[in-house]
């Protein structure tokens, strides 16, 4: 692939000023139809006011249980779902103000979990990859050539795979095609929504290595969504832990894995199977399912399952507070001196 297609808009350090992608107060509530006239007042708080930044060239991992809003967040970021409120900024341009949805979608691409469902069964691989560039005005011949380049870049020989249909490929091969399709836009950010979760472990490892290689070759930025903590640790520079549509903790991968501050993060990490008998689980494992996002618990949303819950947890909403490590934040009353939680440090300042 020529350099022109790789990073056509290589930013010459002009973006050093701020984060590449910045999300502030992103919220999406899905109304649920109920009642006779179908105009119920019940909403699912899928994503409830989350904020985070992604620096150029880094990988932000997003983890959390099913239904915590990981995939909704991903879809909000490419405007497949329109947010209720909150702002999305890409390279200091705000969506809706000085950036259109079309601009956003060209720079932020997504790879979905289900490799089969994300490919049109009636299109050959080269047509599937060439579709996006052609939509954006590339000539058919050029787009086909680009598709062949990308196929070989993701490790699929164009001669063998360009004319194939999705059902003729294995899951890993299909996911490689999906990655190639996302790359066809020369995006700045690629969102990987459980992109390797459905693959065999050996294939998963190959695809993860491919993703790492592509990232360094093309200077990509990833948002890596997964429920597999090991994979997230391997892939990410920073990790965001989500619980019931909110950010529980966000921080650099080493700091977060070695020094988890939020009880939920600790419980998640404790649930990871350990190969080392000396590092057995010490914290009580989480029991039960997350509460219903239609009626999330008051105060700290985690207090219903938290071993450290105190009266203050059900009455006050904890803010994300800065921890010792740089860029490590967690939302827990125990971390805020004087919050009223018995395990919090004593009153700091009045």
């Amino acid at each position, binding site marked *: 692939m020529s350099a022109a297609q790789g990073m056509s808009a290589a930013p010459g350090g002009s973006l050093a000023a701020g984060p590449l992608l910045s999300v502030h107060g992103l919220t999406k509530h899905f109304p649920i139809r109920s009642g006779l006239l179908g105009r119920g007042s019940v909403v699912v708080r899928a994503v409830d006011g989350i904020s985070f930044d992604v620096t150029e060239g880094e990988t932000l991992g997003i983890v959390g249980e099913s239904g915590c809003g990981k995939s909704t967040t991903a879809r909000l970021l*490419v405007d497949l779902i329109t947010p209720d409120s909150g702002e999305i900024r890409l390279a200091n341009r705000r969506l809706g103000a000085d950036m259109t949805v079309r601009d956003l979608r060209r720079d932020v691409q997504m790879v979905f979990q289900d490799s089969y469902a994300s490919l049109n069964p009636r299109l050959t691989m080269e047509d599937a990859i060439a579709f996006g560039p052609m*939509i954006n005005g590339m000539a058919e011949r050029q787009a086909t050539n680009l598709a062949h380049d990308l196929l070989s870049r993701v490790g699929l020989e164009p*001669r063998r795979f360009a004319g194939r249909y999705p059902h003729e490929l294995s899951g890993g091969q299909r996911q490689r095609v999906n990655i190639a399709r996302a790359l066809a836009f020369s995006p700045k950010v690629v969102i990987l929504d459980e992109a390797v979760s459905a693959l065999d472990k050996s294939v998963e490892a190959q695809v993860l290595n491919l993703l790492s290689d592509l990232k360094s070759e093309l200077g990509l930025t990833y948002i890596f969504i997964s429920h597999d903590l090991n994979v997230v640790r391997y892939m990410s520079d920073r990790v965001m832990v989500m619980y019931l549509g909110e950010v529980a903790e966000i921080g650099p991968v080493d700091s977060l894995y070695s020094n988890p501050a939020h009880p939920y993060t600790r419980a998640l990490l404790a649930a990871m199977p350990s190969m080392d008998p000396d590092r057995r689980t010490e914290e009580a494992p989480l029991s039960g399912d997350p509460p219903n996002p239609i009626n999330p618990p008051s105060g700290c949303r985690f207090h219903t399952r938290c071993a450290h819950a105190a009266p203050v947890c059900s009455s006050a909403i904890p803010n994300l507070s800065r921890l010792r490590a740089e860029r490590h934040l967690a939302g827990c009353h125990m971390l805020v001196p004087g919050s009223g939680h018995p395990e919090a440090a004593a009153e700091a300042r009045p």
Partner: protein
Amino acid sequence: MSAAASIAAMAAIEKSPGYWSGVLTRLRRDPVAMVALAVVLALILMAIFAPWVAPNDPYRSSMIRRLRPIGTPGFPLGTDELGRDMLSRLIYGARLSLLMGVMPVIIAFFVGSAIGITAGFVGGRVNTVLMRTIDVFFAFPSVLLAIALSGALGAGIFNGLLSLTVVFIPPIARIAESVTTGVRKIEYVEAARASGASGFTIVRVHVLGNVIGPIFVYATSLISVSLILASGLSFLGLGVKPPEPEWGLMLNTLRNAIYVQPWVAALPGVMIFITSVSFNLLSDGLRSAMDLKA
């Protein structure tokens, strides 16, 4: 990469057989569907070349040789109540009967698909308005609707075609809507939306190819229904008018002869039966040939 090298690379690409050639291969392996296809083709050829195939003039009547039995010399399938050659009338009858059976379905296929795909893809309020309007037509039994419409419009071939078309649009639109709604939620459509493509382009490239098959199969299964409804309209005097040969109408005019020449009187019914069964079997064969998992 030079142009010549790129052409060479393009030529070397292994191409998988396309979807439709696969369907054709599978259809060819289905003996029942192939027999049905042969019958359908034979009927169509018969209708087109009626003047050359028919042994006699289908309109020439004779008071002397009325209601001859099957096997009469010169009239292999006997004669009708006005002494006209049954074989020739059945052959000529294929023209109008097939027209009345196939045309409404073809038109309804295009109109119904357009309505259903629009409703399914756009969703929301547009879907509600379109589909609830369609639902109004479901309140009437299809036979009754066809009779009421052609009764209101007046007898005649064109009005018959029109009323049958209106009868078949709602079921086709409903199938199209449900298939499209299903496809719209699949991730490749989301991926296409994420690529910034317009709704029209997404429908053309990603939706149409995946929904048209099931709709088409359903439409072919309606041909037999249309044929029977058309015959019913003619039977009631609402479709084709005498002396035009049409199977339904022939069944009607011959019904008084059922005690005199029951075999001759049943012949138009036999034609309707053979035709509708063939179309149904062909549609079944198509359905299984189009199923990728099979």
